[in-house]
Structure formats: structure tokens, C-alpha cells
């Protein structure tokens, strides 16, 4: 049970990086539909950099953020400044990202016969706290990226609700024109949230390759970026909301996996794999009062 909860948090970590940044992007009015591609680029670049530097995870993380930001820049440039369709652009960029990392993976590493491996991030037990029964091993024996979230979630919430930056972001997602009139640079702010998404999703992707597994394959993300995307909806576009959403998803996944690995087959395993997706649909339908930003997905075309 403790193991299950601890894994819930561990596996929720990358999703939360993604969904937290998605909250910011969507609050400002831009859906980050390139999320899957950014995750993948982060996972790939993080791995390559870490591997080439002999397992230096810090450099790996930096590279992941860099690659995430680059991908995000392309996405943001097309959707925010060139005002093109977000969903369609996302689809294109996701395919491109897959092409780029499969292609360059080959360019860089050729055809290795043994797996390329780096030592992934290790859990750090926090002194004293980690000795608290139950809670200790669930919460305080995690890796650094998870701990970072303990800080990031409150900060994200604080910035969104208590600072001028947050007010501006929330406002331009609802009425960009009002923001414009009030002297905000709408496109620039939106671009900023997408860059932030680049950083966060880059880390999220790197979590899989160098944070957890120490390896890279092109299927490593396998739709998990989209789960982070969905969690943003479920979390009602709130930092603490997505925290809860992530935990629900993480728990569903962890449960599914422990059922699956116990070899019991009362329910088909596919049901469990599909469960988070079904859950998303159900919750999307069941949630009546959504905080959905009024101008979500609509480019701001300022005339003149």
C-alpha cells in the first residue's frame, strides 16, 4: 500500500510538471497542444546530453529544458504570433518532434546492440521527515524533481492568484482586448506562458528518460503528455486542482499496474489502461461549472 502511494506520487511527478504549465498556458488563452512533442523532445535531449556527459543529470535536465523551450518557441511563434490554428499546429509539431528525435537518435548513436543507459535520479530521503511512519516513506523518500513540485505547486498558485503576473495571465485568457487596453502585451505574455510550458514539459519528459528510467526510446512518452493535458481540464485550470487531478490519475494508474502485475485477470488489463481516459471523459462531462478561459484556443488578432 505504501509502495503504491509512493509510486503514485512518483509517476504523478512528470504529469504535474506538464499540467501545471498547461494551467498557465491555457489561463492565458493558449492550449499547448504540442505538449506530447515537447515531452518527447525533453526526454530525448535530456537523455542525449546526460549520456554524452557520462551521466551528468544536471546537464541532461538543462538540455531537456532547452529542447522543450525550442519546441515551444516554434509552437508559440506559429500559434501566437502568426495566429495559426493551435490544434492543427500541435498535431504537426508532435509528428515533427517524433521524426526529429528518432532521426537524430540514429545519427548520434547509430545502432547500439546493448541498451544505452545512464544512472537515473535516485530518491533522496529527507532526514527526520522520511522516518515518520507511512507519510515519511510516501512523501519524503522521493527524488529531487518531486520535491521541487512541493514548492512549485504553491508558488504556481500564489503567482496565479496573488501577483500582477497572474492577474494579467488570467485576464488575457478571458478577454485579451481588455488586457491590451490595460497596457498588457497580450502576445508576449502568452508566448511567455508557452516558454514556461517548454521548460516544464521539457523537465516532465526528461523525468521519464533520465529521472526514472535512465533510458530512451521513441515510445517513452506514449501519450502521457496528453494525460497531463487532460489533467489541466480536470483540475479546473487551478494549480491545486491539477495536483488533485494528478493524484487521481496516478492512483488509477498505479492500481491498474499493481492489478496487472499481480497476474490477476478479473478485468481485462486494457480496461485499466483505458481507465484514465474513460475517467477523463466522464469527468469532463460530469463537471458542470468549468473555469474554462473564455478565449481558450483563439488567437488574439489585434487589428491595425
Amino acid at each position: 500500500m505504501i509502495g503504491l502511494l509512493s509510486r503514485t506520487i512518483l509517476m504523478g511527478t512528470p504529469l504535474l510538471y506538464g499540467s501545471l504549465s498547461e494551467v498557465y498556458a491555457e489561463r492565458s488563452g493558449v492550449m499547448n497542444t504540442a505538449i506530447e512533442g515537447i515531452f518527447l523532445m525533453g526526454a530525448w535531449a535530456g537523455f542525449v546530453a546526460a549520456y554524452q556527459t557520462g551521466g551528468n543529470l544536471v546537464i541532461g535536465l538543462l538540455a531537456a529544458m532547452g529542447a522543450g523551450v525550442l519546441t515551444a518557441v516554434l509552437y508559440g511563434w506559429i500559434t501566437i504570433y502568426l495566429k495559426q490554428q493551435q490544434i492543427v499546429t500541435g498535431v504537426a509539431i508532435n509528428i515533427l518532434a517524433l521524426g526529429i528525435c528518432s532521426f537524430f537518435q540514429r545519427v548520434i548513436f547509430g545502432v547500439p546492440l546493448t541498451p544505452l543507459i545512464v544512472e537515473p535520479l535516485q530518491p533522496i530521503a529527507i532526514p527526520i521527515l522520511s522516518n515518520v511512519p507511512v507519510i515519511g516513506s510516501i512523501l519524503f523518500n522521493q527524488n529531487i524533481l518531486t520535491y521541487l513540485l512541493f514548492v512549485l505547486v504553491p508558488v504556481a498558485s500564489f503567482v496565479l492568484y496573488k501577483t500582477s503576473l497572474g492577474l494579467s495571465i488570467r485576464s488575457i485568457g478571458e478577454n485579451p482586448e481588455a488586457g491590451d487596453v490595460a497596457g498588457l502585451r497580450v502576445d508576449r505574455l502568452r508566448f511567455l506562458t508557452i516558454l514556461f510550458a517548454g521548460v516544464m514539459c521539457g523537465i516532465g519528459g526528461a523525468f521519464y528518460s533520465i529521472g526514472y528510467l535512465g533510458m530512451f526510446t521513441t515510445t517513452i512518452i506514449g501519450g502521457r503528455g496528453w494525460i497531463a493535458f487532460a489533467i489541466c481540464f480536470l483540475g479546473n485550470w487551478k494549480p491545486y486542482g491539477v495536483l488533485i487531478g494528478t493524484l487521481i490519475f496516478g492512483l488509477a494508474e498505479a492500481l491498474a499496474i499493481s492489478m496487472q502485475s499481480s497476474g490477476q485477470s478479473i478485468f481485462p488489463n486494457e480496461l485499466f489502461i483505458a481507465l484514465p481516459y474513460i475517467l477523463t471523459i466522464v469527468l469532463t462531462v460530469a463537471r458542470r461549472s468549468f473555469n474554462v478561459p473564455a478565449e481558450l484556443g483563439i488567437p488574439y488578432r489585434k487589428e491595425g
Partner: protein
Amino acid sequence: MPETPFVELRNISKYFAKVIANQDVSLEIRKGEVLALLGENGAGKSTIMKVLYGLYKADEGQILIDGETKIIRSPKDAMQLGIAMIQQHFALVQANTVTENIILGLVHGRYDIKHYDKIVADLAAQHGFDVDPTSIVGDLPVGIQQKVEILKALYQNAQLLIMDEPTAVLTPQESTVLMNFVQQNTSAGKAVVFITHKLREVMEVADRIIVMRDGRVVGDLRRNETNELELSKLMVGREIHERTYVEAVVTPNQAVGLELQNVSIRDPKDNVFQIKDISLQVHEGEILGIAGVSGNGQDALCNALSGYRRLTKGKILLGGQDISNTTVRERIRLGLGYVPSDRHRYSLIMPMKLTENMFLKRSYGTIWRKYALIDQKSLNAYTAEKIHAYDIKATGPDATAKSLSGGNQQKVVLAREVDLGKRVIVFDQPTRGLDLGAIDNIHRTILNEKKKGKTIILISTELSEIFGLSDRIAVIYRGEIVGIYKNHDLDTQKIGLLMAGYTPDTTSDQVLHEK
């Protein structure tokens, strides 16, 4: 020797994709004065001020502040130069609170919302505005939203306050309060630009008047050296003739075309009645005008009539037949025409062709069908004929609705609804946002339909329109009809009070329907 004006615009031109909005506009704004910017719809008033405020980039020309050339790239630059602007269409974030709207873009870093709530509350109190800083703007009536806009400008403590048609949504009484405020504001050496196309307001409030027409400045006058007639001539380029009501008598034997019996609609969300207990009869060949300040239930009434919303209570009879539970489609079939006030949203599909807009309400009918397909040929012919008959300026039946000017768009709607409304036509603000030529045209059409014996409801906030066309006038206030009068039994004074919720025969401090 004249002092340097606060703002000077020199030879500004601004082109949009298809229009020249401003051409070679030069004007000055001086400290301590109220400058009225007068012009018809589409004259370019908003555009020139948006250029000054940094919302639009001028294609040509320059801006001088205190005699120095400045480049204003964004509203932020303008705000730093001491310029504030209240938009014609409110620029408020509906989901945010009043305070959040006011401080948007003006706070930095962490802020304490309680602290600012208090500042806003004080500011409101100082100007006698009754605004709760913590309420969500989307929940507020438009009149209050206007005040929020003004508070936002005041909060900036700007040297120049630009107000773009601030009175459009206010009652006459609220407008008066606003005018007083404007005049007080300039006493401290601040300047105000007051954009409007209402002559009366100009004469009341302005020190100086700049008249615009077709994107150019056509006059720059002091208020005390001009008069309304001169201004209107400048504005329109010709003299205006106020349409005077032509007598038309409702004889008792005329059949009732449309009847409402205790019609109510309650908003399911907050349980408030949007319209309550409305009962009225309109005869064939009669125009019933419904006057009122916008936001007093006109929308709900239209929705009830068109079938867009279910009634909570009551009955609607069309020629004696109960249509309360029929759908929009059914009512169209029964011969109910409806010209909504927001043509961009409710009557036309902007990216579609005129033919398609003509087809819109008849897609279920069998007219213009050939086998199962749409009979494009006859639809084209029909549209071409309407373009001709209504003198619609369009390149042809295949032009998109978007490519037409506002007045011509409205003519398209009219052409369609007049044909569809074989028995009853509901006009909601049919001339809003149009210039005099178009207005005249539309008024003529309405009267023509009346002559044909159709039953007509005309909802309008323009009193001249109500007085000019209606046989009888009903006044709506807070969702209720507060009185139905024969046209002759009312005058502007009396109707103004009714619209504001006062009984016309008591003193003005006695409120009729205060809740």
C-alpha cells in the same frame, strides 16, 4: 500667445483592410477642456482615438505630446504619457472582480487584493459611484460596468481621459450624472475627449467640438460659437429632417395580430425574473413601440417572442393561435419575422454568402429545392432581386455578409425578415449603429410593412425612432411593462422618467419599482 496643446495629432491616416478609417486627421487637445468628437457611425472617431491610445498603429502622421513628438506603440506607452481611454465596447474581464479589473496592468509583483479593494471603494465613494469592488464584473448591469470603466480611468489619474460613447447604455438621468462628472474633472486642468454622435450631449458638455465625417475632420468649433443645426449639417453633410409621426388610427375593429398574456421568463441560474407578467396586444397594421433603457428585459422579451426561450409562465397568441410551446422553426413557418439587435451574432452568418444568409431561415422549407438539392439558380435570382429592391450595396449574391457595411447588412436582414414575417415582425433596435441614410431607408420599410397590415413590434432605445414610428408606446423597466400609451400622450420628459423607473406624475425622487 497660445499655450502648447497637451496633445497634437498631425496628419494621421489609418487604413484597414478595406476601409480608410482616418485620412489626414489633425487635431489638438488642450489642457482643461472638454473636447467633443462628433460624427456619424463609421466617421472614424474611435479609430483616431485608438491611434492616440496606442491600440492602432497609424499608417501615416505623427503624435505630439506637450509639443514633443512621441511614438506610442501600445496602451502602455499612452498610459505612461498620462492618457486613459474608455472603450466604446467595454474592455472588462467579465470573470474578474471590479478591483481586479481596475488594477489590471497597474500593479506590479505581489499585491494584496484587500488593500486595493479599499482604495477602489474609497475612489468610488469619492465620486459618488455605488460600486462594490469585490463583485464579479460579469454579474453587474451595464450601467455599473460603465462606472467600473470610469473608475479604472480615474484610478490611473490620467491627464487626458478619452471616453468613447460613454452614454450609449445609460439612462438620461445617469447620463446627466456623467456629464457633471466630466465637467468637474476638467476643472483640475485635465482634459477630456468625449466621443458621441448625440448633438444634445455635445452642446451640454463640450468646450470645443471637432466634427468628423468619412474619416476626415470637417469642423473645429467652440461650443458657444455654434449651434445644433450647424453641427448636424457638418456631421451629415446635409440637413436632417426629424421624422415626425404620421397619424395612424387604430380602429377597434382591427384584428389582434399578436397577444401576450402574463408572459414571464425566469433565469434558471439566479431565479430572477427577466421579464415578468407582460401582457399586451398588438393589432394588425399597428406598430407597438417598446421603449426602455437597454438591459431592462428587451432581450428576454425578444427571446420569448421568437421562441428562442421557453416561457416560465404565460401565453403568446399569434392571430389567436397559442404558439407558446412552438419552436423557433415552427414560428418562422407561421409567419413570424424577427430582426434581432445584434445582427452579427443573431441574424447573419458573416463568413457566408448573401444567398446562404437568405437561405438560412428556410433550409427546412421546400422553396429553393430541386430534387433534394438546393436550387442555387432560383436562390441566386431571389437574392439578386432583393439586392436591387432594397438598394443593397454588394458586389452580388455571392458577396459575403462580412464584406458589407453595417447598414447594408441590416438591409439584407430586413429583406429576409420582411418576406418571412408574413404576419408579425419583431424589430429589435433595427437601426442601431447605422447612419442617417440607412436609418431612413429602414424606417420607410417598417412603415411600408405596417401599411400592408402586418403586426409590428418595434423595440428601441432611440426615442426619436419610437416617437417617429409607433402608434402606441409601451415602456419596459426591469422586465415589466410600466405603461402603454398612445403616441400623443407621451413626451420626451415623461418617457424618460418612465424609462428610469419613476412615475411621470410624481416628483423625481420617488422611485417606482425599487427592489
